[in-house]
């Protein structure tokens, strides 16, 4: 069971929020996850239900329609959602990431005009950084935004965009100046703007309910007042957003691993071999003990990085450590869960093989785990 020790929650309202989340996760997510992943259909209406409940703007200020929750509470919500259906938790995480550039770097006027709708639960966002030629080195991006009077015209191709084709707004990082990181800006683009063409969906290994595709931009007009932050500030906005986003991925990994442990444990208590429940064999019991320990460590690491963020302290390296550790952990734990179920773990009758496929993507998105090590090592070298 996902631990919800009330002593670890900062406020009584956080407790109420998690209770609401649990009700939604149990009644709306859990019963639909298997079928939804099998059919590969994005559960748009379900995300709206979460939005109406207030889960699509949790870590943002109440004055703009957000939930005013500290990151550590928002992450517990994500963890709980991920333990029932990762694709849905991922959707909440990506949407929350996509609201960050406006919330943190928009002008007051931009925030007042645009943020309430984005946090209101009916709209869904996407975050367009990666390009076909490279994800790990986004400073090499080639998508351009050329000034044309009071607009930019955006042209280029983004790749691997979660919510491509279903999002209502896109954060597009593109080049407004010269080469390198300093030539990049961040634009907030309505999905309905002419010239935006989402491509065919990628056929992914897991998270099949979550649409991922390239998006081609062909002379897309974007008003200059949709630029978030100054020209050339885009790269640093993207990296800040990813610091926060990585904590979301870490929380998703913890939730996924917890689901796998809970499932494997229940199975191991019931499955008999040699006249005994297999959980009583040390070989199985120790596997589960290691999983429980690793999950607890990953959760603690993630929440401690979140608390730094909540206090306004630097947390870039801590977020990278949490993302690295939690997602590697989830890969290990979901793989071991398959092992605990033996042959039954290898077939789609049980969800553990799906969870193993889903865990893999967490080691890749929002900076591969190699890139997380790079961030941590850089911090060590220059810190």
């Amino acid at each position: 069971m996902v631990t919800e020790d009330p002593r670890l929650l900062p406020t009584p309202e956080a407790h109420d929020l998690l209770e609401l989340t649990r009700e939604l996760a149990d009644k709306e997510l859990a019963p639909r996850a298997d079928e939804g992943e099998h059919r590969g259909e994005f559960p748009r209406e379900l995300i709206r239900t979460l939005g109406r409940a207030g889960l699509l703007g949790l870590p943002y200020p109440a004055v703009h329609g957000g939930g005013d929750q500290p990151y550590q509470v928002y992450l517990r919500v994500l963890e709980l959602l991920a333990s029932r259906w990762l694709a849905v938790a991922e959707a909440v995480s990506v949407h929350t990431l996509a609201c960050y550039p406006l919330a943190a770097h928009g002008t007051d006027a931009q925030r007042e005009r645009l943020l309430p709708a984005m946090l209101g639960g009916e709209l869904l966002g996407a975050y367009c950084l990666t390009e076909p030629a490279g994800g790990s080195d986004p400073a090499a991006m080639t998508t351009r935004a050329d000034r044309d009077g009071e607009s930019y015209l955006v042209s280029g191709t983004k790749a691997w965009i979660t919510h491509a084709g279903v999002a209502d707004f896109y954060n597009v990082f593109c080049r407004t100046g010269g080469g390198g990181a300093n030539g990049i800006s961040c634009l907030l683009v309505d999905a309905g703007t002419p010239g935006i063409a989402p491509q065919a969906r990628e056929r992914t290994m897991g998270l099949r309910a979550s649409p991922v595709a390239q998006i081609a931009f062909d002379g897309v007009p974007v008003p200059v007042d949709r630029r978030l932050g100054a020209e050339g500030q885009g790269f640093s906005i993207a990296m800040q957003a990813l610091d926060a986003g990585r904590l979301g991925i870490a929380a998703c990994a913890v939730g996924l691993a917890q689901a796998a442990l809970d499932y494997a444990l229940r199975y191991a208590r019931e499955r008999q071999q040699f006249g005994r429940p297999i959980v009583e064999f040390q070989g199985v019991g120790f596997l589960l003990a290691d999983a429980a320990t690793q999950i607890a460590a990953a959760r603690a690491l993630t929440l401690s990085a979140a608390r730094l963020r909540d206090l306004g302290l630097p947390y870039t390296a801590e977020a990278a450590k949490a993302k690295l550790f939690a997602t590697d952990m989830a890969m290990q734990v979901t793989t071991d869960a398959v092992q605990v179920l033996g042959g039954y773990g290898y077939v789609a009758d049980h969800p553990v093989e799906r969870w193993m496929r889903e865990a893999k993507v967490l080691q890749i998105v929002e900076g591969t785990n190699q890139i997380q090590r790079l961030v941590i090592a850089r911090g060590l070298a220059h810190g």
Partner: protein
Amino acid sequence: MKTVVLVKQVPDSGAERRLRDADHTIERESADNLINEMDDYAIEEALRLQEAHGGEVTILTMGPTQAAESIRKALSMGPDQAVHVLDDALAGSCAVATSAVLAAALRTLSPDLVLSGAESTDGRVQAMPHMVAERLGIAALTGARKLTVGGDGTLTVERQTDEGYEVVTAATPAVVSVWDTINEPRYPSFKGIMAAKKKPVSVLSLADLGIDPGEVGTAGATSAVVSHQERPARSAGQKIIDQGDGGVKLVEFLASEKFV
């Protein structure tokens, strides 16, 4: 329009429920207590009417101290306020007495519309809405699967029956009870939960309602449960092992039970 929704707290019907040996009443302390499922639909219907026609929505509950939890939960969906009838003397009330108490509380609220569930999952009397309407001398439109309010305030209800449905109408004030076919209840929102903490809940005693404690509770029950017995444990089913004739044996079984 002023709407009052009757909301009963019941033990979780999904969990195991027991009766107390001493007085044959439901063990409410040990159970996980929830809003009676059908009452969620009544609340939703009240909120939809409020969204369309304005007015206010009040929750009315008669129940022990822990019913306050369900009242907050109900308020987190959106109603404006609640009335909780709470009195130790109410323990063990029969359906007739319950209806007297609810009717007395409703008189203090003078609603245009009283909405309730069509049935509770514990008592299952299915008569509370009728009894309350009778006591108030107003119409009872029961078992609704659809409710509309006309321009002149006339209520029209599609009343669900085994064969189909009947259309019945009445002028307000009236009692309408609903089945789970009428709508899809909303979840509370996080903001709704926060707001519910500040919504007014007035607690009324029997004295506040001018009811003699001797007329309610175990003392005033018009009927008494004299004994109860647990349902016998299900006996093990009959196992048919297929040795080539499994299909025939299954059909024989079904025929012997008159299924085919």
